[in-house]
């Protein structure tokens, strides 16, 4: 009879293309096959994994080894891009790893620790939709997935149906990618690797899916209101005698819940077709600003002791000077970012017109003029953004007659936000909505990033120069003017956000 010796995982044997070959062995410790204990850290070459010969230990060990083979050494380049958060990246990565392990012939149905079922119930009880989406994705393709969904369904059938659909769609996306590419650690620039870019793309979608929980289940037509219950099976005590004594939760019996609408509503949130490119690095040059331009953009109200209408009556109590009235002062400016790329077809005069319409503002224009090189310091080699006006002074000569590529749309907006003196300083972005990243490659994800950034920081997007001049003039006169968002934004919103603002 032979005794089974422990199986030490051999991460040392696994080759990667994104890291230089390192000498010596990994630090490998044995742990129990319980969720949370096995762990792999590629950068510090540490692994904790079970070393038993049983089926569960084997699949957990293989799961960790696949992490060592394909997972990125550092998530920060992905987190900096802001497409997806840490938890969504990790959840989808779990799914990718489990899928790759199953492709190697390992039966990942063994991968469960028995806690999934109760966790499924708990996420519903705590109304943790995001947690539910992430866990569903992380366990997709494993034995724990079904148990988790059973737990969820027991409490909320709609959630269960939508989560099952989300997992199915995510898995379908993963299986579409050829295995060689899905497992590739080939560097693709900016510290990122090819295989994980698929994880990132799905995680970006998962982020959107996790924002809004499906609506509460509604009773199907003709349902008797009194027949409340919260389980779909297994509750043998659920009879007529106990019904009266049980508190009604107002949730219909799950067998009577129609989940079709919720599932089809969730399907409106589409996945991006491919991995998005990175943004080009922004390199700003401040042009000489010899010309003084008098004027100011916008008005603001300040508290005053004198006036006609006491708008700030609360100050009677809170303000020692009892400034309950308003007085209006001229605004000191804002920030105007002008997309001067080819799609804007902006002439030198039009650009100048925008600058003149924004007195007192900081005006910056951007366009990558054909040079996409990144220096050894990680910065752009050539200037791609120019400050045309600042603190009441403007340049006398516009830097170019017609711009070329976008490339730096989001970095330009980030520059504006980081340079605004107060959080309520207005930022106006003159852009047709056609944003692009590195190499002037467009991608819907880049559009979504720019849209999200604008809504997060209250940036007003103006689609063309004529509207921009009107809008800025109106703003200078203290008027409010509504502006229609660029068509590209509306289209992206319809495709990927189900039309949600």
């Amino acid at each position, binding site marked *: 009879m032979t005794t089974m010796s422990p199986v030490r995982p*051999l991460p040392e044997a696994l*080759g990667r293309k994104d890291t230089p070959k390192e000498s010596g062995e990994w630090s490998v410790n044995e742990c129990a096959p319980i969720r949370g204990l096995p762990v792999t850290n590629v950068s510090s070459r540490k692994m904790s994994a079970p070393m038993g010969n049983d089926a569960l230990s084997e699949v957990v060990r293989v799961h960790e*080894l696949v992490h060592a083979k*394909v997972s990125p050494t550092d998530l920060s380049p992905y987190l900096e891009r802001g497409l997806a958060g840490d938890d969504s990246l990790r959840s989808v990565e779990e799914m990718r790893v489990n899928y790759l392990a199953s492709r190697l012939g390992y039966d990942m149905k063994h991968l469960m620790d028995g806690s999934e079922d109760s966790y499924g119930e708990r996420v519903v009880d705590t109304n943790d939709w995001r947690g539910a989406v992430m866990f569903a994705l992380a366990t997709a393709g494993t034995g724990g997935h079904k148990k988790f969904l059973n737990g969820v369904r027991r409490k909320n059938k709609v959630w269960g149906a939508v989560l099952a659909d989300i997992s199915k769609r995510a898995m379908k996306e993963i299986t579409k990618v050829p295995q*060689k590419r899905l*497992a590739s650690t080939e560097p693709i620039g900016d510290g990122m690797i090819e295989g994980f870019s698929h994880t990132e793309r799905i995680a970006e979608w998962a982020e959107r899916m996790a924002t809004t929980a499906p609506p509460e289940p509604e009773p199907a037509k003709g349902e008797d209101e009194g027949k409340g219950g919260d389980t779909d099976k297994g509750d043998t005590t659920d009879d007529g005698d106990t019904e009266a004594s049980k508190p009604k939760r107002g949730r219909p019996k799950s067998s009577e819940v129609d989940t079709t609408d919720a599932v089809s509503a969730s399907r409106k949130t589409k996945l991006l077709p491919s991995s998005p490119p990175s943004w080009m690095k922004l390199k700003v040059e401040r042009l000489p600003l010899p010309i003084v331009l008098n004027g100011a953009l916008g008005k603001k109200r300040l508290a005053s002791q004198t006036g006609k209408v006491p708008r700030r009556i609360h100050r009677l109590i809170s303000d020692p000077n009892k400034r309950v009235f308003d007085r209006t002062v001229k605004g000191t400016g804002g920030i105007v970012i002008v997309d001067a790329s080819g799609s804007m077809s902006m002439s030198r005069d039009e650009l100048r017109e925008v600058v003149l319409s924004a007195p007192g503002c900081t005006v910056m224009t951007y366009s990558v003029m054909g040079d996409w090189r990144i220096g050894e310091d990680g910065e752009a080699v050539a200037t791609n953004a120019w400050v045309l006006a600042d603190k009441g002074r403007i340049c006398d000569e516009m830097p170019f007659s017609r711009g070329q590529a976008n490339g730096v749309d989001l970095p330009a907006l980030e520059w504006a936000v980081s340079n605004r003196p107060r959080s309520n300083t207005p930022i106006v972005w003159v852009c047709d909505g056609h944003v692009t990243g590195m190499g002037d490659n467009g991608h819907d994800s880049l559009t979504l990033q720019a849209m999200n950034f604008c809504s997060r920081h209250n940036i007003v997007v103006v689609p063309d120069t004529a509207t921009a001049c009107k809008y800025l003039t109106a703003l200078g006169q203290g008027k409010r003017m509504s502006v229609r968002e660029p068509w590209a934004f509306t289209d992206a919103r319809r495709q990927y956000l189900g039309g949600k603002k």
Partner: protein
Amino acid sequence: MTTTTDNTKLPSCWKKLNNALSAGIDRIILFGPSGTGKTYAGLNHGNTQGGAHRLICTEDMTTADVCGAFMPDNKGTFSWVAGSALKAWDGDGITGGRLVADEIDKAGGDVLATLLAFTDTPESASWENPETGRIHRPREGFSVIMTTNIENMAELPTALSDRFPVRIRIDQPHPSALTRLSSDLHGIAVSLADAGRERVSLRAFYAFDKLRSSLPVGEAAELVFGDRASSILEAMRIDSLARVTV
């Protein structure tokens, strides 16, 4: 013999060796895990037209292995038989040869002293043949490559390390050594050649490769890798991930 492998495709350590040899460096230490082909490289890489002579150093060896000794001959008398270092000095009679000293750090005191004399700079290196009284000097082209498994070069005697200014850590097998192995084993053989305590030598993979052609894979692995067979097979399976085309 001069190797013709494309330098740009070589792993960094082998590229360094090629660069050092082609720049005319004639005293090189190759160190690192065993089974990566250091000795093979010493015997075959660079200009070895004058012949390559191997010297395996142990504590029990004598200077006879280095410079030579009187040995009984078939005439019933004693005649002088040159040692490896002397042969390498003389080379083919026109150019000097290559001395490959394996584990030179393991040589005893007197042998080490003799070796130091033989590996000295050409200007100061000389040795008198006790039979003929002839003074031998290294011929032009004489080179020495020393190989060792020790990782810390500070552990080498100072006099020895002074003579070998270029030290290269060979951490993976030469690509030409891998050609004897099936392509699916290349990656894992390279990775495990320098895996510290988990190291598996290239020779083990040669044996496994041969065995698996006639035996089931599991059996072949158990025969070669013993207790570690499951671990190695598991790792091989996972390492194949990015290689598989679907």
